[in-house]
């Protein structure tokens, strides 16, 4: 997903727009930006500063600065949960764990090697089980005894659960088992940082109440989830943009900005 979020100088959110991320981040970023501007009815040149983040951050031609998703997520989460110490983001391409102090990342761990422990794991398997990802949470809450999923690799786990299902295991028990597999994997990653509360979970998967429950079981502590767990990265980027802008204004300078046009960028590598 590509998300654009606009705030005013006080950090008040003016507009939020989400669009699927296709291979052409570039063009999409432009479209999503367009829509966000319309929603806030602003002209692009009225935007003071733009920070791009995430995998496609290099491909937002109208960005003034590019900052990694780790820093942006931490900042966004901190703005919503001032007491956050451990931020966990389970995205479609990776899982990120951040130790956060006053909104800054002090240590982090990422899993982008393998689908297990990412949102993709559930997406892939949901298809095989013929259920909607967004329904998995409620389905799993019906479970009385979860089925242990022994395969870590997404592909083999999918194979395994299909087999379990055909052996007559209950769908809800299997889905609960899947959530458990993801949670144990992500918490294993987080443990390399020493987990401290408050723990905040973000990313599309955070909407899944089954995952949240499984995470709490593995973390042995409460897990906080923002209202819209998808946009914390963009929110953090916007706040950092605001800060960067205000700092330079305070220094009496003008923050270096790029030419503000939704141009078709010529590509660099």
């Amino acid at each position, binding site marked *: 997903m590509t998300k654009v979020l606009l705030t005013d100088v006080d950090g008040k959110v003016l507009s939020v727009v989400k669009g699927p991320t296709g291979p052409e981040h570039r063009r999409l970023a432009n479209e999503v930006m367009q829509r966000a501007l319309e929603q806030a009815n602003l002209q692009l040149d009225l935007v003071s500063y733009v920070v791009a983040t995430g995998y496609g951050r290099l491909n937002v031609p109208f960005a003034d600065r590019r*900052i*990694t*998703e*780790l*820093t942006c997520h931490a900042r966004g989460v901190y703005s919503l949960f001032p007491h956050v110490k451990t931020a966990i983001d389970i995205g479609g391409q990776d899982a990120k764990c951040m130790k956060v102090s006053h909104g*800054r*990342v*002090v*240590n*982090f761990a*990422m899993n*982008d*090697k393998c689908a297990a422990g990412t949102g993709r794991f559930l997406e892939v398997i949901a298809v095989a089980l013929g259920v909607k990802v967004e329904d998995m949470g409620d389905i799993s809450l019906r479970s009385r005894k979860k089925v242990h999923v022994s395969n870590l690799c997404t592909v083999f786990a999918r194979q395994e659960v299909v087999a379990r299902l055909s052996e007559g295991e209950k769908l809800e028990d299997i889905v609960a088992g899947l959530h458990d597999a993801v949670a144990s994997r992500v918490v294993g990653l987080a443990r390399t940082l020493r987990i401290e509360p408050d723990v905040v979970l973000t990313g599309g998967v955070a909407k899944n109440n089954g995952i949240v429950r499984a995470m709490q079981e593995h973390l042995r502590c409460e897990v906080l989830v923002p209202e819209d767990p998808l946009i914390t990265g963009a929110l953090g980027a916007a706040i950092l943009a605001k800060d960067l802008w205000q700092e330079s204004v305070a220094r009496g300078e003008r923050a270096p900005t790029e030419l503000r046009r939704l141009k078709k960028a010529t590509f660099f590598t």
Partner: protein
Amino acid sequence: MPNDSRGLAKAKQVYQERSRRARQLRAEGSRVIGYPCVYVPVEMLSALGLVPYRTYGDIREPVTEADRALPTSFCPFMRSCFDCALKAKDDFLDGMVVAHSCDPQEKTARLWESYVGYPYFHFMDVPGTVRPEAVEYFGGQLSDLKATLEAFTGQELTVERLRSAIQFHNEQRALVKELYELTKPAPPLVSGTEMLQVVKALMSLPVAEGNDLLKEVIGEVQGRTTGGPELKPVRLLVWSSTLDDVAIMEILESGANVVMDEGCGGMRAYRGEVKLTDEPMDGLARHYMDDITCARTFRQGADGETTKEYSQDLEKRFGYLKDVVEEWSINAAILLLVRYCDPFAFEVPSLRDYFDAVGIPSIYIEYDYAEGALAPLRTRVEAFFETIG
């Protein structure tokens, strides 16, 4: 080409086609001996007029042949080295000398010897500790190497020859240190990427040619007014088993000045010097066991190994890094390892303790020795710089 007169350009050129000079020398009748690890005493090769050639892997070459004999959960660097050997990418080598510096070196050596038919192959054992009897044993291993080298070349490795080779290599060590002096200013006069190109060039050329190259480079860099690296907020120390591709160095330098590379693509082979003892082999043995700061060698608090006080232990193992941090005004460190590098990986928590103690923020980053690992590496490196920026 006018550029050829300039040292850095020359170093870059050698880096880009490392084997070119070796192949040329071979065509002219010299014999080239490969070695995959810093523990191989190149002095002994140079002394017999052999060209020492440090073999590396290639992160751009997908590993396919190595699977014949090596599992995937194995040092990706040695997998790649072995893969390149099986693909005859180093077919200009007349022989190989491998040292038992770590398991992957030792295990791969056996396969190397059986799968690639070099006219000459020698395996040296390396003791685990620096105890006197161990260093003496290593000296014995050196005389074994001497014996097979003499048999291979049909020449005698005389004390005189060895002494003069040691002098050449000591000069190279001194020159590399001199060049590293030039990363001390802010901004440094020479970049980590350039240093890597120079060091890998040195490991592909006869020692004398390497020394000439170094002199050219030093002259050029000292006289630099423009074209040097720009000032970055971070002065970085990289601690690694091997960092041998500029693509990786460039990722690091996107947000930092890499002023010290504690690895086999940097300072490791050039720290200290060989003492010219009456029996030069003794000096060699001492140097390789004492001065090479590779994690594979077991060192600890006090000799005799009867005390084990942690802070004292850290000082003994990592103390030299404190001086580096001070002299090069380093303000951050990255522990950059390929996966499955056990000797180094076991050091990570202790070394990070030590960096904490000297007040340097550090991070451990693990990467696959492969091109596809560069994108994830970039995100981690950038994020680390953001955390300390």
